[in-house]
């Protein structure tokens, strides 16, 4: 498969590994931002091939994990409503809210459907004019352009039975929160390649400068990850800091301008609560007032629920790189993918689910 096989090439991997080992002389904590990167490290066993001085910390870039509990609870309320068809990406249906998950609502009679693209949800709205179709628009900058586009299409078609429940977040704001924290352990970042495919990497330059930290835009295949780690460690060893782009086959400095413009047209930045982490200034994307009629939170009467996060779950500390999944006393015992205490155990990109799945 083109653009995949060459980045899973064993010979190339065997070439880069000794270079990483050669350059590393002291302990470094490197955080991969994206949950997809975490799982690729674990799936290919690459974490075990790295020098023991390098500790990988698993970042907050898992959209399912950081979606605030109150948004999931709102999703559950909407999905349980009589006349609503609730459309969600597959990842989201098993994530526990404060009392249950979307699959349980479906089992009680809620019309919950898994969609593969936001456009599928709009199509359902068009074929079910007598129903209210709500799309759970979640994700980072990777999903934001497509989710914005579906709002524009709904508006163009005047599809008034279509709304979106938004929980969109942006990556650099979370990175800054981690860096500014007194408990920060991160020495260098592997930035999420797919986020940067949309946004470019210019936003990271002031961040690297301010916190004197290397940031390497990194892809998702074994060779990408190793090249990302190499570039990051090399900067650290040479006491340099700056932004490097390992994922050049997809990422440019400016990013995908039309996608960014679509996002900007539909969404605006607000302070936003991240599950497990808390409020992060200017980190959430919500619909602009012009699109209020497509905002599920404005269309429907959603009552506030007293939100109770599981007290035992340390997902927030894991997402900030302060703890690792194995530091949790409930890992693999009280908390498993069958009975998750927090989202990091259930999402396919969550760090705890990855550790459980690959038996770290």
């Amino acid at each position, binding site marked *: *498969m083109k653009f995949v096989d060459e980045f899973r090439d064993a010979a190339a991997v065997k070439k880069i590994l000794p270079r990483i080992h050669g350059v590393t002389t002291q302990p470094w904590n490197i955080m991969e931002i994206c949950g*997809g990167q975490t799982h690729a490290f674990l*799936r290919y066993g690459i974490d*075990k091939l790295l020098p023991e001085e390098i500790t990988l910390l698993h970042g907050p870039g898992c959209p399912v994990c950081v979606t605030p509990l109150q948004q999931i609870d709102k999703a559950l309320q909407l999905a349980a409503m009589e006349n609503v068809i609730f459309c969600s990406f597959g990842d989201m249906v098993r994530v526990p809210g404060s009392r249950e998950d979307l699959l349980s609502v479906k089992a009680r009679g809620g019309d919950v459907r898994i969609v593969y693209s936001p456009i*599928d949800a709009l199509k359902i709205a068009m074929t079910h004019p007598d129903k209210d179709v709500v799309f759970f628009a*979640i994700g980072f900058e990777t999903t934001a352009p497509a989710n914005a586009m579906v709002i524009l299409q709904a508006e163009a078609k005047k599809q008034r039975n279509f709304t979106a429940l938004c929980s969109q977040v942006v990556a650099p704001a979370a990175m800054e929160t981690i860096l500014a924290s007194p408990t920060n352990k991160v020495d260098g970042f592997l930035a999420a390649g797919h986020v940067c495919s949309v946004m470019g990497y210019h936003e990271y330059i002031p961040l690297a400068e301010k916190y004197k930290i290397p940031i390497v835009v990194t892809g998702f295949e074994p060779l990408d990850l190793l090249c990302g780690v190499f570039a990051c460690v090399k900067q650290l060893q040479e006491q340099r800091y700056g932004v490097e782009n390992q994922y050049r086959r997809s990422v440019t400095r400016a990013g995908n301008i039309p996608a960014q413009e679509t996002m900007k047209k539909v969404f605006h930045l607000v302070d936003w609560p991240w599950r497990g982490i808390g409020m992060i200034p200017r980190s959430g994307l919500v619909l602009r007032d012009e699109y209020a009629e497509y905002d599920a939170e404005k269309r429907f009467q959603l009552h506030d629920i007293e939100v109770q996060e599981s007290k035992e779950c340390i997902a927030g500390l894991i997402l900030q790189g302060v703890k690792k999944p194995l530091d949790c006393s409930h890992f693999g015992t009280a908390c*498993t*993918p069958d009975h998750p205490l927090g989202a990091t155990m259930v999402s396919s990109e969550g760090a705890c689910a990855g550790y459980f799945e690959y*038996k770290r």
Partner: protein
Amino acid sequence: MNNKANFHLSCPIPISRYPRVTMAHGGGGRLSHQLIAEMFQPLFANEFSKAEHDGALLPTTSKNIAFTTDSHVIRPLFFPGGDIGSLAVYGTVNDLAMCGAKPLYLSLSLIIEEGLPMETLWRIAQSIKTAAETAGVRIVTGDTKVVNRATGDELFINTAGIGAIDHALAIQPSSIQSGDQIILNGDLGRHGIAVLAHREGLAFESEIESDCAPLNGIVQALLQARIPIHCLRDLTRGGLVSALVEIATTSGKRIELNEPAIPVREDIRGACEILGFDPLFVANEGRFIAFVPPDSAAAAIETMRAHPLGAGAVQIGQVTEGEARVLARNIFGGSRILDMFSGEQLPRIC
């Protein structure tokens, strides 16, 4: 493998009178009898089904028989490479074949949702007949029920099957020995992706067809070649990994896979990449693994490759000493432990 030529024969229940199945077709009265007498009996008539009993009286010369049952629910009813009818036949045939049995007789039980087009039922009934002929089994008894609209999902089919065991091998997980080689009969993931793509309207460059097929022929070929098979397992729901984890757990043996050796077609790999699926967990309906002693591995592969359903047969791993689990080694020298999913694989967000 489907004998599509049969499909032009028109439905024996006059469409003008009953274009859709009604509750009366399951009520035990005249319409029920008409449905059975005009649609099913002519299709499946054989010397065992003619007896005027509610059950079939069957002869057997084997010391041991295998008996299994399987219910089939699938949406959509028709998918590239098969339909619920062929699936219901091959599913049970394959379960018998995996016991090392020669499948002989099947029961056929239909739960039909009121409103199912009569023509759809007819097409599926013909597909069942063709599949049974292809697999060399006879449908000897059956039942139909009709349920109210919105209380079924168009059509559910249950088949139960009986097979004869005419050899002395104990084909079961507890027969597996350390050192056994694991042979797979071909590429993985086609059924799961074909059904998903068809149901969800995901278009790929070329249409992906299910691998749905009867495995009794290729298993018989292995038995005739006197391969001392230790265990057989078809790789249906949950794919290769679920089958192996189950076997590792019940046999108490450690299984090591050589991941690069596991064949997955390019289009299936691409679809899995897009959806965030692991092909090792995707369902198949015409794939199985055989555990054989190391000195029989070459002969097993050769025998499988000589059969049309085993042209892509390869050795994908072996049984080793150690903790009962499944391990996959990758080309980088790394490895991962494989375990079942909590539910089913869900497509990822980004």
